[in-house]
């Protein structure tokens, strides 16, 4: 199994969710995150005082998938998240040893 993590622009969440559903993913976890990459932050001005805000709002989407689906799923997420502008985010995957469905105790791919 693989854990796919995507840190992307918050307003792409709906598109990504729809694309994943169409692909056949049944569950995902979303958390609000903040960070910066190449685009750095932005500048805000309060009564003439300029503040550089380093960390910009992002969302982190996490999905567990079977190994065979991983590469294709990454493509689906990347396509749905892309706006073509700086700050679109990153997607990566990690190997996962095991997973358990809490309600039934099923293990491995059956738990997905």
């Amino acid at each position, binding site marked *: 199994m693989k854990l796919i993590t995507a840190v992307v622009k918050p307003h792409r969440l709906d598109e990504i969710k729809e694309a994943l559903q169409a692909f056949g993913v049944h569950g995902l976890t979303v958390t609000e995150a903040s960070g910066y990459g190449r685009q750095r932050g932005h500048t805000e001005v*309060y009564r*003439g005082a300029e503040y550089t805000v380093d960390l910009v709002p992002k969302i982190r989407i996490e999905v567990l998938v079977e190994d065979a689906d991983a590469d294709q799923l990454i493509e689906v997420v990347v396509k749905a998240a892309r706006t073509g502008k700086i700050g679109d985010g990153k997607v990566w995957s990690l190997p996962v040893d095991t997973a358990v469905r809490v309600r039934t105790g099923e293990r491995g791919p059956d738990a997905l």
Partner: protein
Amino acid sequence: MAPAIITLAADAPKLDSGNTAFLLLSAALVMVMTPGLAFFYGGMVRVKSALNMLMMSFISLGIITILWTLYGFSFAFHSGNGFMGSGGWAGLRNIGMGEPWLSTGVPILAFAMFQLMFAVITPALISGALADRVKFTAWTLFIALWATIVYFPVAHWVWAPDGWLAKRHVLDFAGGTAVHINAGAAALGVILVIGKRKGFKKDPMRPHSLPLVMLGAGLLWFGWFGFNAGSELTADKVASVAFTNTQVATAAAMLGWLIYERLRHGSFTTLGAASGAVAGLVAITPACGSISPLGSILLGLVAGVGCAAAVGLKYRFNYDDSLDVVGVHMVGGIIGSLAIGFLSTGTVYPGQAGVFYGGGWTQFGRQCLGVGAVLGYSLVCAAILAKLIDLVMGFRVTEDEEVTGIDQVLHAETAYDFTGVGGRSAALAGDGSISEADASSSKKVDA
């Protein structure tokens, strides 16, 4: 029977129900400005001291009301000498229920309550300069002393018939000197003594809630009609002039500030709109009874642009006027008070026309006297008081407490709890019920 009827007939015209209703409602409008100010300031600080900022204004409603009842009104408005009133009305006693204030037809007690609301908001205005860093007990002691030594006498100078500035024909319709320059200068005096916040000019100190700031500015604007039009004390044509000028100047100042910051910094900001409106309200306060609506547009624009430029001075001269009390209230108050010397039409105050209305420089000279006297007196007294309080009990919280956040340390509260997970659990007693807070067993907090 006959003498009684004569007495009644003589008594009846002394009080005017229309004027009394107008003034009591105006007093209530001015009262709501203090909570409005609390939100205006509270939204502008970081989240860790939002409650403290609200409390610094709210506590003034408690402290000053009691002092006003005990001796404040008497020292401010009973006849006395040019400097302050006598104690004849201490405890709000010896005030005839049917006695009107001067020739207004309004009971003295109604006038006392109207003026109380001014006495409440003026010390509260100072709090914005001291954000994030002062002990709550030191603050309450400060406003009690400052009101006694500075506000009550200065209100007498400016508004009592025998006040020394009133006798010299200084025009201050609703408090440009007594309220705004007074509070702004005091703020400057205190911050020069207690110093900057940790991280000033280094750490980002963004407003935590601009919607609260806008709400506060809206309440201030609303209440200010009571503040300015109500200062006529009677429901008449001058009150209508004051009401009109208040609206016109505030609108112009908001536009002035917004245009300035768009040209200078690139955006129209909500904080700029709120600040510009307040700057206009401040500047029109002394002038609202004596200038024309067109004069108000000019004054508003000057105040909006002037204050927007003035709030940057703290970075150049390196004093931490946290929420720009000096930049908005002192500078706005000075602009409004001096503008009377140019824009006073002389219609309401014959013989007191300004430079632009053929009155020469006489009135401008008087305005300079009023501005200088109040500014100097308040600044010096506030600095001395702050120094004394600092020596006796320490004005500031410790650096650790400042970093942690004053809400948690001094008030044992947090402004917002958005955690659904219960990150902060209740202190549970052995039987699982929530234990009663016990000051002796919990960490001793030196407020």
